[in-house]
């Protein structure tokens, strides 16, 4: 299934402001936010310092998230065949900095510790619908919990790809996140159909809702569900910075303080106008 929402081009900033306002209103209603990585540049030159911003928001319009070490499980840069932690100062945005080698496509990976949130039943169900998690609504109904507040622990798994001089096969390798969007090949090399896999605990996940949003025009949104092999694809209509995102939810364990655990995966990258 491929649904594409587009609007006529040319409204630029006004549209983004409207979207931001809508996002805020929506945020007030459903209390759910995407999380992604927004580096200072998606194509760093060798030897330059790259600031890694974390963003939370909706429709690819986000607020800066300062670094908070206690909530970071993993924050690394994979480039040139090695992996290094991304350092930074707590309570400061951008959350991290690293020195780019710029030779091949680099992968920034961020994994958070869990955070607890409790939502009133109606807001919780709104949010489940918005993120394609109707299955959880049914499960709650089956357990007679629809009137109960949604008690949830959420985890964030964000990745960003930084264009280098050469493509990198490492881009298509899973990082081992509990929930992960893995491109089939390096999407920073050319504007081509984006093919990827949704992995949950390292295994393909079927029927996961995946959304792609264009940064320069957040009204350009593509949605698709993963197939039985966890595979999905988008035909990206424009070059530019894209956010691919997906949310999965499972019943929390017996000893958890929450009833549900949600896993938020995102991938940001820049699809080039011309192939490299």
């Amino acid at each position, binding site marked *: 299934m491929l649904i594409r929402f587009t609007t006529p081009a040319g409204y630029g900033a006004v549209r983004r402001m409207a979207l931001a306002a809508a996002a805020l209103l929506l945020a007030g209603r459903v209390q759910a936010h995407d999380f992604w990585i927004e580096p200072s540049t998606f194509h760093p030159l060798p*030897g*330059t*310092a790259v600031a890694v911003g974390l963003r939370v928001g909706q429709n690819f319009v986000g607020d800066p998230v300062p670094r908070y070490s206690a909530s970071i499980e993993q924050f690394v840069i994979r480039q040139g065949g090695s992996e290094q932690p991304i*350092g*930074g100062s*707590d309570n*400061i945005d*951008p959350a991290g*900095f690293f*020195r780019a080698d710029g030779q091949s496509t680099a992968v920034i990976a961020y994994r958070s510790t869990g955070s607890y949130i409790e939502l009133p039943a109606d807001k919780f169900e709104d949010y489940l619908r918005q993120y394609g998690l109707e299955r959880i609504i049914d499960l709650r109904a089956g357990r007679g919990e629809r009137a109960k507040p949604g008690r949830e622990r959420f985890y964030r798994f964000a990745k960003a790809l930084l264009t280098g001089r050469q493509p990198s096969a490492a881009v298509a390798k899973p990082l081992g996140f509990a929930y992960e969007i893995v491109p089939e090949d390096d999407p920073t090399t050319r504007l081509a159909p984006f093919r990827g896999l949704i992995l949950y605990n390292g295994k393909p996940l079927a029927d996961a809702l995946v959304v792609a949003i264009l940064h320069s025009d957040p009204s350009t949104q593509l949605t698709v569900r993963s197939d039985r092999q966890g595979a999905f694809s988008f035909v990206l209509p424009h070059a530019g910075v894209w956010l691919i995102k997906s949310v999965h939810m499972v019943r929390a364990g017996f000893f958890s303080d929450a009833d549900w655990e949600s896993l938020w995966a995102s991938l940001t990258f820049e699809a080039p106008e011309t192939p490299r």
Partner: protein
Amino acid sequence: MQRLAVWLLPIALSCAALFTPSAVQASDHADPLHLTDPYANITGLFIFPKGDQYVLVFNVRKSLVGPKPYPLSPYDFVMNIDLTTPVSFQSDEDRARYGGTIVAPEKLHPDASITVHLNDDTTLKDITYTGLQGTDRIHTYTGVRDDPFIFPRFFKVNVISMVMSIPMDAFPKGQRDFILWGTTAKDGTQLDHVGRSVRSQLPRFPVLNTSAPKDHVKLLMKEKEFWDDIANFLNGNQEWWSQAIAGILEFTFQIRKYDLAPDVMIYTNRFSAGFPNGRLLTDDVNAIVCTTGDCLLQELSFVEGGWPRAVVNDKPFLDDWPYVAEPWPERAPPVPPTRSIWPYLIGVLLLIAIVKWALIEIIRRLIILLWRNYCRWTAAAAG
């Protein structure tokens, strides 16, 4: 407890400074180098156009008041100019702070350089040019002049000034962008560095002084990781004094998010000259850098100066060659301190050792006493 922490804060910071190897060498006016090797201490780098010439000023030896001769013979004073590494002017932030963006920091290199050796009376011993055309038309002045830095502590004192007037056609035709930095060296070892004014002298930048600009981003990144880790650790503790130390680190040693750029001076003739696009003699650099986040010297100029804060030099600059202001009359230099801190440090260490020994001795005697009582008790119980 609070009093203890007040004592602990400076001790912890002093230790941090001591154990940071690079912290023993720093640059420009406000650095310890002037105490150990004052004639290597760079106090300013200026470049501005004048007619069909570029004027380059390179000053060393802060707070100079005593008479000649000075031990200048061993030093190499070098001004480097990179004419080919790309500079971008797209980022307003970088333009305001650094005059532009060095697009590929690792490629920084000198395409041209001027190396000056001085006699001990400050006259020119020799000068060597590389990468410049028509060097016979370059005018050079060397000598004692007023310190042009607008900062109360350095009013009414001199520096040793090297001024060059370089014809614009000494550079490649159509040259628009210039990246400059200066160094001093002795016996082949770089002792000091200057790039953009009021940078390497800040407490968090000593690492810049003995390294080449092409390595600055890499070194600053390492420094940032080091101090961020310490600050994050201290911030993550519940004790108020731990967080207080982190707060002090934030404005002293921690590398800031806008620091990750090589320390060079950028000058372009695309825009009018004036700091941070090069530097004019009249530029109030402390006030300018304060607008982009570095206010340490601006604060000190209020602390040490009067009201209103001086915004011009304490001596007028010359309209004509060599442009730098006339020197202040020679006078006896201030008497350096004669007291040593070592007896105090040794005393503190001895006191700690005695207290520690006394505690251990008390515990040892207590254990012996208890053991004897236990033996006596078990013997009595058995008998």
